[in-house]
């Protein structure tokens, strides 16, 4: 075979491979709810990626199937690595997820990478609260992360338990505080308090010799074992999963007076997905009829009447606080960096 023949074979192989693995033609997206439903029914099963665990998965899948007749396949994503993987794949044209819950510190990056589909959420679903729609038009807030204090009720009585963040720096808890090493709980507080008060607070927290733990699950296990008496700043949903499975667990929850929350499940439709209409429909469902299922995962909206979160807030007389969508992305990274710097952790750029 001549050099030219080899060249032709190689070129054909490259072209063939490119055609074989190239993303298919982009699916049409409906402009009205009726059209979205019509198109969604013709799409393959919806692929979603969220951090859900436990009964919320089966309950929402069942309810959505009943309402629209559309099947949903769930993929668990946690932390940054999973979302970065989805982003990396999308950047190179490989889209395996139709709807993704993007964590706060990556939301800017997903938008600037151009991998998301813009949706007119309020036009399609007028019942949605406008505050739950990101002004950039990409994200729809559905699940809410709330950050609580927890204590081991075998070691600490309800009366002695900390009531607010300032109690965590009380020297009486020295060496008895557990803290999750990813300071998500303190991001909103950092924005509310400002850098100076935050630095002062986290210096005092560090002086209380907390035990830093690398995953929420381990934080909870060591609290239940009695390694420390209290945990300051942990996502309620992590404890909810444990309490759902074991109501007699020795872990009790305190809703602090200053109650930081933020959109935890910001759902966005991936460009190039095979079921974009189903994705829109599902996100809208989770922001309206399906929102009640967030009670099962501890991610309901503390400002919405009838939710578990609202009842907790009301009972504790707490003041929920969220700095809005602008506290995502870069603002969250800045706050995270500032907090872990005070804690003495190595920090990136």
């Amino acid at each position: 075979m001549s050099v030219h023949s080899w060249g032709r074979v190689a070129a054909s192989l490259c072209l063939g491979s490119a055609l074989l693995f190239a993303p298919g033609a982009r699916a049409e997206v409906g402009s009205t709810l009726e059209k979205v439903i019509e198109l969604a029914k013709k799409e393959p099963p919806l692929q979603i990626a969220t951090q859900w665990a436990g009964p919320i998965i089966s309950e929402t899948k069942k309810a959505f199937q009943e309402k629209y007749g559309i099947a949903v396949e769930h993929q668990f994503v946690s932390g940054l690595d999973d979302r970065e993987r989805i982003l990396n794949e999308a950047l190179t044209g490989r889209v395996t997820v139709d709807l993704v819950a993007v964590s706060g510190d990556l939301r800017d990056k997903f938008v600037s990478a151009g991998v998301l589909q813009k949706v007119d959420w309020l036009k399609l679903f007028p019942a949605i609260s406008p505050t739950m729609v990101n002004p950039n038009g990409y994200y729809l807030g559905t699940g809410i992360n709330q950050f609580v204090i927890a204590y081991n009720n075998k070691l600490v009585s309800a009366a002695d338990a900390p009531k607010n963040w300032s109690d965590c720096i009380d020297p009486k808890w020295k060496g008895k505080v557990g803290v999750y090493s990813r300071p998500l709980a303190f991001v909103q507080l950092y924005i509310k308090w400002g850098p100076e008060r935050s630095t002062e607070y986290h210096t005092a927290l560090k002086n209380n010799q907390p035990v830093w733990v690398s995953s929420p699950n381990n934080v909870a296990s060591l609290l239940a074992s009695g390694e420390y008496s209290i945990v300051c700043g942990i996502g309620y949903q992590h404890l909810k999963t444990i309490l759902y499975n074991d109501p007699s667990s020795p872990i009790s929850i305190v809703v602090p007076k200053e109650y930081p929350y933020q959109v935890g499940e910001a759902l966005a439709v991936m460009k190039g997905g095979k079921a974009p209409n189903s994705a829109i429909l599902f996100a809208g469902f989770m922001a309206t009829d399906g929102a009640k299922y967030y009670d099962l995962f501890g991610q309901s909206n503390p400002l919405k009447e009838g939710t578990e979160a609202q009842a907790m807030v009301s009972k504790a007389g707490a003041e929920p606080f969220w700095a809005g969508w602008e506290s995502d992305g870069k603002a969250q990274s800045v706050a995270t960096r500032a907090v872990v710097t005070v804690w003495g952790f190595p920090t990136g750029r």
Partner: protein
Amino acid sequence: MVSIEANQTVLPAKKFDLVGWVSRNMLLIVVTAIIAFMVVVPVGRLIISSLQEGHPAFPDGWTLQNYSYALSQPNFIETLGRTFWIAAAGTALSLIWAVGMAFLVERTDMPLRNLAWAIIIIPMAMPGILFAMGWALLLSPNSGALNVVLRAVLSPLGYTSNVGPINIFSISGLIFLDSIRGVTTIFLMVVGSFRMMDPTLEEAAMVSKASRLQTFMKVTLPALMPAILAAGMYSFILSMESFEAALAVGLPGGVFVLSTMIYFTTRVQAPIDYGLAAVYGVLFMLLMIGLLYVYRRMIRHSERYTTVTGKGFRPRVISIGRWRYAALGAVGFYFLISTALPFAILLWTSLLPSYRAPSLEALGLVSFQNFVKVFSSPELTETVWNTLVLMLLTATATMALAFVVSWLIVRKHGSAVVTGALDFMVFMPLAVPGIVVATALMVAFLTPPLSFSGIYGTIWIVALGLAISYLPFCTRLMNGAIVQIHKELEQAAYVSGATVFQAMIRITLPLLFPAFAAGWIWVAVHTLRAFAIPLMLSSRDNKVFAVFLWENWEQYAPNAAAMGVVLIIFLIPLTLLLRRFISQLSRQQG
């Protein structure tokens, strides 16, 4: 002088025959190309990323900023020094344990040596994250189950504190875990040398009236020192990369080592800083290359020693008298701390609805509910299938490649330059942490031209990543085994008309079966418990059991504990099979 000149003018200069050279070295060239691809992809990608800004798939341009930032970090040198010291201390303790136990099971009349042999390698079955978290629950200073027992025991002796006496969340805690984790690898690497040692050296010492201890310290140990140091260096390199223990017990005590420093500076704060991560990877790799150089020098000596062993003698069994039972007790103690205790706390967690410290009250909550959940998970079937496919694929491909590579290197087939390059390249992955291999493969196979291969998102890319990581150990194992097989056997085959390939497959490979099988099982066990590479390269279609376990660990610890128990129970028979094949290998070599 004249005749020489005449000859020089008469004889034509010999031309380099490229076609002939290629045909003579075809197998070597193909294998070297495969290894070069496997090594160059991650290493090359790492170096390029370290010099780029932005996302590695879509860089913004070239820069040296990543290096200047990394090197200006105030804690970098301090952390590096701490990591070095922890790894050195951990390895030294591992060496004492491993060499001591290798001596006991191979050279003494300690009772139950076969059982001891098996239980020494069982810890290999326990995934690092479960082992580390198990010890965090056992020896956390306030509530650790063992600390509670120790306080009760020491109380009559005047110990009144409510804390301790042991704090696993410390540098010494890290060293402790590191030392236990390193034992199995060192043991597997040195135990053969103990079995194959020429007894005449020791007999000469005994004849010279040396005591048993003097003989051991002055003859046995020095004779085996190259093999011991080589194994120690290998283990030290692995310790430097150690991550799970550093995260589970280092972080709570505020102790950062290199791996956790890299993790926190590049992966905890979004967006992930690929450039900085790559720089740390390159710096780490340079350090490891230095260590590899030392390691390879040690290997040279150890292999020279091992060659002496093919004489068909059996080492003398040394009677240790009444110390026999104390020795067995020491091995039992090792089993207790390396396997039994962490497994027990894992089993305890798996039987509860949520974690509680061991107590009679908590005993009332024990059930098999978590196991029922694990076995009724709809994802389980597909995940187990993927895991089995990955295990078979990785173990077979890695060992096949390791066998051919070792054969080419040891038998010095083909060009010395290419063989030398192959020998160097095949050890390079030891210097590249798994997480770096995974990131490099992800970027490489998501971007052209490799994106056209279509292997991203499949089991194949996970198998490739694991094969790269395990090649250094497997080639080391096969090198040692091939050295034992006399060349004359293959030469006899050539004389009978066999080709090089036929001789390799029909003569050498069957003789090496025990080593091949031992390596195969070692890879299989490590594949099943590996986290870092499958986590980075897994997606919806290629999820394996370890990733499934990790996801559960993130969601609900008791479920993950149940999965860990199942995994370990599955892995233990595999490790016992490993013992059987290694034993067979030793008998064959003897």
